[in-house]
């Protein structure tokens, strides 16, 4: 195993993939050696998951070739990839919530005896596998009842069992605590030592030198560079972003106006608790007009939950503490009440809850202002089209036709539509959840500029994001959330490590 | 003057038959009889349209016959009242209409040419009298299996039977359940009736298929043929029909509900070929009681 053969374990050459209007991969070369842990980096939407989905047989490439141990290979479905010893932990976990942990661990490869499921053997093996990754999880519990972190560990345990040649891990640490991450890295090293090649995708740059051997950076569907994991972080950032950060982020605005949102020891108790739903629990923060405030935190910290609850979209429940909008107690019982208070929300899931994908850009844009364009309930096509064209121009949506079908637009342009739609509603407090998720670098810059412009016009903006550079580069202040509580506050441009430390602090004591 | 202008021996005549609902076995029997009778007249060609148990569909089929200007229309209305307007429309368009089985609400000879058929109330009444007088002279408990509730024949047959058994004060109708003309529903319903009233001596089924279901229920309750007097209605021929069931002793009786098919074709011949100036406007065809006495003989027919 020491003598590295001339052929790499995996070699992908000139891989191309297109989704509708989005060119996800434009000819990517990627190599993986035996026993190597290879970090795959790139901003949101760079094409990392797409490349790995091709390797795992989830999607087929439009062009390019793939060789495993020198043999040209093409997987038509995930089963074929698994049979070839390629195991994957998908970014959207491949778990069935209604089935228990054991059933999930063996899904697709259940051991049987005389055609009958061998439940005893499965449960025993399930315990072993979970113990091997250091997870203490009841094997009989339905996966839907587990927290996000525990689900992640189940997915890891599941993939490890049949990773005989290649293991792909798409952001496995995003929902894990520091202790869990340490344990996971230990497991990864063990597996690599057995000669398995591991592709490791993460947004946490500081993890790279701790675990990886080499790094490939993707940018906009192209390889921006390959480097040893020991390369300085600044070098990696340059590869990731492709230009100095200063150009990406607009200049900060100077004067902040009156307080738009004020939370003091605010707490939201939902009437019906949900597994994995971190309710806001002791939140204190302030957003003033003209200000962009960031919300930092690890996955599952409750950022999305805070924004949804502020938008009246978290279902029935009770607020306590001080929750004021423009100095008055906020009415957040329903979305319509919150909107009446001037609150707007851009969701983190534009395809799932942001857009009518099969409808046109114009009809999507006016969704928030239907009352305005339909006096006496009759749609005014003229008003509608005027507003839509204004919004399209203001946000530079391409193509600029209101008739274009939204689902066919690129991710960045879809995101602009979601943002423009919300802005048309003329909110005074704009809540943005992951506003640049899955958007290419160019579009990111445009979106940042638009957000800053909105703030300059007097909006208060609250942004939740998993991209630390984005928060620190764009925001005037950054508030850190942990388990539903605000734990720290930093000024814009603060040190990334300090913010991260605050977000992750003392997580390992939790079960 | 003759009833239709273009009548005569040499013509070719299209007769349209608007059937109420092919899904009832009795209706297929009507179709068969009509087809057989029409086949004997070389000038006639018969078109059958299925109203599928839906007054709207049947109305539209009548409309189609009018559009096609068929020479004569036969109709078995699914329900009488709803088909009344379209029948009148056909007559107004100069097409003679002979109604089978159910009479529409107009005036015979004016709003429709003639009616040929039996009488649901009477046939069930006769069944009732047969039970009261012949089968159970000493009285006892009896049950009724009704057809699709609120449909004309179901209502009339139910009422007719109950009227008929009044002839014997010692007879008590202890249960009546709707089985929608279907054998499977009849089996289930009659099984429950037998459970609740083990002394039931006779059951009147408003059609033959329900009688077949009732027999299966009786068999399931451990009764032998004849323990419970089963009466059907329609008197369908063929291996699946009631005549055979009576002949083989499975049932006690069934009452033919005459199709009027041969009579209708005869009348059509009179109108179209013989250029009749007048036809009888109401022809009631008598029902025949099929009992063990005559069943074997009837089977041959």
């Amino acid at each position, binding site marked *: 195993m020491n003598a590295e053969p001339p052929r790499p374990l995996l070699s992908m050459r000139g891989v191309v993939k297109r989704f*509708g209007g989005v060119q996800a991969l434009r000819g990517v070369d990627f190599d993986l050696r035996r026993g190597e842990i290879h970090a795959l980096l790139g901003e949101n939407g760079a094409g990392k998951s797409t490349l790995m989905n091709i390797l795992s047989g989830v999607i087929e490439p439009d062009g390019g070739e793939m060789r495993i141990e020198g043999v040209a290979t093409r997987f038509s479905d995930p089963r074929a990839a698994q049979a070839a010893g390629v195991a994957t932990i998908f970014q959207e976990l491949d778990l069935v919530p209604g089935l228990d942990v054991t059933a999930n661990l063996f899904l697709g490869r259940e051991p049987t005896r005389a055609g009958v499921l061998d439940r005893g053997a499965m449960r025993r093996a399930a315990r072993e596998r979970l113990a091997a990754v250091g997870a203490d999880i009841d094997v009989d519990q339905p996966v839907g009842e587990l927290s996000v972190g525990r689900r992640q560990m189940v997915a890891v345990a599941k993939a490890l069992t049949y990773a005989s040649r290649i293991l792909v891990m798409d952001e496995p640490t995003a929902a894990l605590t520091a202790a869990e991450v340490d344990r996971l890295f230990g497991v990864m090293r063990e597996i690599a030592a057995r000669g398995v090649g591991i592709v490791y995708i993460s947004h946490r740059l500081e993890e790279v030198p701790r675990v990886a051997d080499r790094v490939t950076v993707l940018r906009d569907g192209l390889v921006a560079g390959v480097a040893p994991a020991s390369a300085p972080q600044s070098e990696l950032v340059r590869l990731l972003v492709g230009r100095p950060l200063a150009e990406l982020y607009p200049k900060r605005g100077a004067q902040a106006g009156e307080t738009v949102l004020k939370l003091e020891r605010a707490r939201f108790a939902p009437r019906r608790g949900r597994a994995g739903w971190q309710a806001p629990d002791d939140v204190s923060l302030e957003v003033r007009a003209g200000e962009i405030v960031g919300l930092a935190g690890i996955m599952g910290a409750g950022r999305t939950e805070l924004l949804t609850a502020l*938008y009246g*979209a978290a279902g029935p429940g009770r607020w306590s503490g001080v929750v004021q909008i423009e100095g008055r107690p906020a009415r957040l019982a329903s*979305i*319509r009440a919150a909107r009446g208070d001037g609150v707007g929300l851009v*969701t983190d899931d534009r395809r799932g*809850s*942001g*857009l*009518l*994908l*099969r*409808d046109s850009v114009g*009809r999507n844009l006016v*969704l*928030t202002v*239907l009352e305005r364009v*339909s006096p006496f*309930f*009759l*749609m005014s096509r003229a008003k509608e089209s*005027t507003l839509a*064209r*204004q919004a399209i*121009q203001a946000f530079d949506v391409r*193509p*600029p036709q209101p008739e*274009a*079908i939204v*689902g*066919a637009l690129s991710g960045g342009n879809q995101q602009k539509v979601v943002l423009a*739609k919300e802005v048309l509603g003329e909110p005074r407090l704009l809540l943005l959840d992951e506003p640049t998720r899955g958007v290419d670098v160019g579009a990111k810059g445009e979106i940042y500029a638009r957000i800053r412009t909105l703030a300059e016009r007097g909006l208060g903006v609250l942004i939740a994001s998993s991209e630390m550079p984005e928060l620190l580069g764009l925001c005037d202040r950054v508030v850190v959330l942990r388990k539903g509580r605000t734990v720290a506050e930093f000024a814009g441009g603060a040190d990334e490590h300090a913010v991260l430390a605050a977000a992750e602090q003392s997580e390992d004591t939790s079960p | 003057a003759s009833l239709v202008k273009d009548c005569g021996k040499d013509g070719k005549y299209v007769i349209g038959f608007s059937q109420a609902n092919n899904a009832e076995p009795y209706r297929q029997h009507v179709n068969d009889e009509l087809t057989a009778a029409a086949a004997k007249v070389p000038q006639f060609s018969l*078109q059958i*349209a*299925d109203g599928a*148990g*839906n*007054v*709207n569909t049947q*109305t*539209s*089929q009548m*409309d*189609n016959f009018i*559009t*096609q*200007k068929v020479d004569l229309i036969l109709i078995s209305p699914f*329900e009488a*009242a*709803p*088909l*009344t*307007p379209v029948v009148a429309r056909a007559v107004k368009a100069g097409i003679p209409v002979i109604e089978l089985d159910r009479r529409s*609400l107009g005036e015979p000879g004016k709003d429709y040419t003639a009616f040929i058929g039996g009488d649901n109330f009477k046939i069930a009444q006769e069944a009732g009298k047969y039970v009261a007088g012949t089968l159970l002279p000493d009285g006892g408990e009896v049950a009724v299996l009704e057809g*699709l*509730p*609120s*449909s*004309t024949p179901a*209502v009339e047959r139910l009422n007719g039977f109950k009227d008929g058994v009044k002839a014997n004060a010692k007879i008590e109708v202890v249960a009546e359940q709707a089985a929608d003309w279907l054998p499977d529903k009849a089996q289930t319903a009659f099984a429950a009736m037998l459970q609740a009233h083990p002394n039931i001596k006779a059951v009147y089924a408003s059609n033959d298929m329900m009688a077949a279901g009732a027999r299966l229920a009786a068999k399931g309750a451990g009764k032998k043929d004849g323990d419970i007097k089963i009466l059907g209605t329609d008197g369908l021929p063929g291996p699946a029909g009631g005549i055979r069931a009576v002949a083989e002793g499975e049932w006690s009786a069934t009452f033919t509900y005459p199709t009027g098919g041969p009579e209708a074709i005869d009348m059509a011949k009179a109108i179209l070929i013989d250029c009749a100036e007048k036809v009888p406007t109401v022809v009631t065809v008598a029902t025949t009681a099929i009992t063990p006495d005559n069943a074997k003989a009837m089977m041959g027919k």
Partner: protein
Amino acid sequence: MNDAAPMRAAPAAPPATARRFDAFAIAVRFQSVIGLILVTLGGIVFSPRRHGHILFLAPDNMANIVRAVSETGIIAVGMTFVIITAGIDLSVGALLSLCSVLTATIMTSGGYGLAPTILFVLACGTAFGGAQGLISNRFRLEPFIVTLAGLQVARGLALVISGNQYINISYGQGPGLAPPVFAILGDRLFDNTVPVATLVFVVVAAIATFTLNFTRFGRYVFAVGGNERAARLSGVPVSLVKVSVYAITGLVSGIAGVVHAGQFNFGSANDGTGYELTAIASVVIGGTSLFGGSGSMIGTVAGAVMLGALANILQLNNVNAALQLLATGAIIVLAAVLQSLVRRREGLGR
């Protein structure tokens, strides 16, 4: 904002492909209209002739077709709203029957006058439909199961109200008689050519087309079906819309029930059986997706008429009932497959 025009001239290449793509999409969007044209052509070719006249095209044959589909058409128009929200309503046929029984009963016993009777019946239909919507929305139940239960309840009520009898409507003045003007629903106007039932269908369809395409409510319906969560987050009153569409199917079932009673002078608990499936088929053939979010009212109307024309041409040629069933089944699948091809082409999968 008038300087938007020159900007749009810039990207020259994309529109070309976009237009080609659109031609296909539009073709399928109006598949039912095209299907109707095809069936009409087929009708002309295969129609029996009499004295050289094409029977299929005879004005009274056309009138026959549109009359025959008027009741299911009225229902299909309402069903279109429900299906665009990705719902379904199986209770419509039974509700038609209930409303026809109500109409007949009140007409022949109440003597409350024509308009109050009709309004009352329509209110009952609307309330019944709305109640189903409320239950399904409040408890998050699949509309399939709620309206399946509603079907049974409506038929049961119809039987109870009619006392297990069919109810004839007789016309005239006095107790137990309905106002003679009500019988107009079974007539044909304008020189005996235009069935009044069809006129009702046309009016209902026109109002529905307008509502779907030109009002705020119509937009809400599309939004709820297109992406319920996005609609909710955009401030659309989703629950209200979802309840309303079932109230609409209730209302149109009521209208169809009144038309039924007026056309046939009759109310019966057994009528309207299977209308729900015909109505749903019309909607789907008309290009509205059962997945919700897209659909066309004109398509539904064309779909309903197409099914009627197909049945008509088969009947004119004396094709038997079995083959009619086979043909209808085949047409439904064909229409659905066409739609799915578009969905794929749009690259939107499901």
